């Protein structure tokens, strides 16, 4: 058996590490967004005149379509939630299982996103409500009702809707052919050529990303986006809420897979985008975004603590404003930082759900899924909490005796040896460079490296060389 067959980590060449996204691309996105806003305004007017012209359509259907995209009132009764589930089932059944594609006139341009978003939101809040009732009031009337209807808002029916929409619209095939610069209509089929199905299918992919993430399956969440190219002029970028949701869940999934550099890249991308387009956003849309915005800053703070990185200036300033003191404590590490990590994680994580009906007879088994995921995450925080301490000392030396350093830190040498190995292992991270989201290379994310020779620690640092080209070009331009 070869020892090096399966390396826990091996550093790829630094030069091959993907350059961070260029500003140009972001600017292009901003421009694109501006155009889009105008475009949408135009669309709204078109829609209005169009619906005036054909108002003879079945009023019922229009009301149903609108209802499917409208949030339930806060604290709606359980009956309403059941009824809403039935409505969704009927609507999707009609869309998916009629003879041939249905010809529907959707109320707004954003309808497809709104309906998928609301559908999943109601699934999420139903599961959380059911779990809470089973935990806190297992003998109430609601509990009885929930016990009698275990299949309402079942995970299989929700996933079934999303996967069916994706398959009907052939959206993955369409996206794949777009990637190869071919005409997507060739593979779209009878359903997929229609905007209604195409949009529903597309946003169902984003919906799946979210559902898998809520269920704690982070690798599958990222896998669902295989056919969607991020950072390009993706379709989701046209609907702000969809754009935002996508990056939040992708970033979060990366964080849970301990790919902090990738998580930071995702969060930074969308936060920069939001801050640049803030002035063009319609107010209502922006409000819904601002809470998630703060959550993402909290997640960035966590990721930066794990993986110190130079952030974009806008992000850095905003992060200091929002979480200045906390960030310092997180970066200092040690046991004092633990409660802070937990608070930030709880405030910023998705509202995890458990997909199956809870056990109403043994309430103590119904642990809040958020507690479960948080516990696992905190385990990782605890395992690595001494890394900042170790790094801050090693930065000062080129060689250091392990026992001496242990004396400074007041720990047993063997413990310190463990911390050193942990920090070394954690400095190697998988980082995306090209291809699907789950691809990546292992790189050394830290500018500090070291090796142990017995009790002697050899420390080395990656320095940034002088930048000459700019200077050279500027002077050439002046004289020549």
């Amino acid at each position, binding site marked *: 058996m070869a020892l090096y067959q399966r390396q826990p980590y091996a550093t790829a060449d*630094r030069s091959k590490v993907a350059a961070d996204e260029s500003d140009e691309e972001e600017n292009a996105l901003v421009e694109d967004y501006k155009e889009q806003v105008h475009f949408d305004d135009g669309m709204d007017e078109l829609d209005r005149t169009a619906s005036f012209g054909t108002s003879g359509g079945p009023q019922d259907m229009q009301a149903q379509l609108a209802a499917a995209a409208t949030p339930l009132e806060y604290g709606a009764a359980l009956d309403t939630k059941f009824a809403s589930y039935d409505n969704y089932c009927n609507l999707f059944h009609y869309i998916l299982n009629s003879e041939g594609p249905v010809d529907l006139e959707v109320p707004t341009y954003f309808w497809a996103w709104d309906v998928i978003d609301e559908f999943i939101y109601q699934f999420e809040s139903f599961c959380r409500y059911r779990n809470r009732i089973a935990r806190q009031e297992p003998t109430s009337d609601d509990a009885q009702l929930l016990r009698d209807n275990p299949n309402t808002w079942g995970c299989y029916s929700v996933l079934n809707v999303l996967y069916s929409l994706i398959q009907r619209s052939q959206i993955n095939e369409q996206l794949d052919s777009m990637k190869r610069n071919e005409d997507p209509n060739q593979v779209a089929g009878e359903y997929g050529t229609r905007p209604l199905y195409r949009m529903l299918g597309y946003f169902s992919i984003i919906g799946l990303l979210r559902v898998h993430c809520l269920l704690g399956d982070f690798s599958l969440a990222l896998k669902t986006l295989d056919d969607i190219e991020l950072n390009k002029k993706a379709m989701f970028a046209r609907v702000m809420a969809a754009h935002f949701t996508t990056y939040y869940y992708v970033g979060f999934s990366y964080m849970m897979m301990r790919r902090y550099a990738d998580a930071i890249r995702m969060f930074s991308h969308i936060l920069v985008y939001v801050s640049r387009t803030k002035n063009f956003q319609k107010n209502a849309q922006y409000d819904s975004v601002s809470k998630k915005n703060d959550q993402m800053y909290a997640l960035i703070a966590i990721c930066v603590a794990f993986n110190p990185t130079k952030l974009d200036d806008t992000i850095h300033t905003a992060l200091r404003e929002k979480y200045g003191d906390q960030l310092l404590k997180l970066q200092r590490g040690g046991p004092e930082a633990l409660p802070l990590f937990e608070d930030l994680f709880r405030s910023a994580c998705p509202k995890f759900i458990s997909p*199956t009906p809870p056990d109403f007879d043994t309430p103590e*088994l119904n642990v809040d899924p958020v507690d479960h995921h948080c516990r696992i995450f905190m385990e990782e925080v605890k395992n690595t909490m001494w890394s900042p301490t170790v790094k801050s000392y090693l930065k000062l030396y080129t060689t250091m005796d392990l026992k001496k350093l242990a004396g400074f830190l007041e720990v047993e040498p063997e413990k310190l040896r*463990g911390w050193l190995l942990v920090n070394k292992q954690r400095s190697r991270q998988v980082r995306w460079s090209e*291809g699907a989201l789950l*691809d990546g290379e292992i790189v050394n994310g830290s500018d500090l490296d070291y*090796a142990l020779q017995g009790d002697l620690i050899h420390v080395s640092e990656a320095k940034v060389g002088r930048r000459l080209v700019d200077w050279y070009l500027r002077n050439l331009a002046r004289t020549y």
Partner: protein
Amino acid sequence: MGIAFDYAPDRPEYIEAILNGLDRYNPETTTVFQDYVTQQCEDRTYDCYANLALLKLYQFNPHLTRDEPTTNILVKALTVFPSPDFSLLLHLLPPHILTPTTNPPLSSGPTPSASDAPLSESVQKLSLLNTLLEQANYSAFWATLDSDDLYADLIADVNGFEELMRVRIASCVGQGCREVERGVCEGWLNLSGREFEGFVTDICGWGVDDGSEGVTAVVRIPVNKENEAKGTVVREEVRFDQFSRVIRRAYEQPA
């Protein structure tokens, strides 16, 4: 050398087909995945992405859950520490699994074997092992492994578990160290004497220096890319098109 998370070199085609289709949600495929886990345990292969799919089936259909494949999957994940696999698997287990049981069953009878111990107890025991490994506390890992018969039951199905662990630990150590005191290294690998020398020289390709008076015996690890810890200077990248203006000027008519 990019490695995608969902890639496994030894994955058979029929598993690949299930994973890429909707059959990954079909309760009937549970047995297929379970057999695949058994196969991984026997022939020392590992496929985290497929194992996650099995735990997802359990998550959706709790009545199908079987303890043995679940613990075997977790034990297999230990053999690839410090990757995030173990945690990712834990995320798919029922939320109460990590909650310490408030009133432990009175152990008046004979010591329970893995099959009678509740799943949550086994999972928590394995979590402890994982924590010790991730904290690079290898000697405590071996001590804990020996401390309880339940552990022996849990790892029984995984062929060559101890050897796999040794190789993995050695590989982690080799990437962080150039020289280790023999005593420390013996503790990390839970081997001593001839066995230790054999493992270190034959399997790892390391050298052992005997100690003499005043000099402790050390294990020498040849230089590799990770343990040389060479200082690097990050140089700026110069692209040809940055000079396009200068070169264009050279072709233009002199003013």
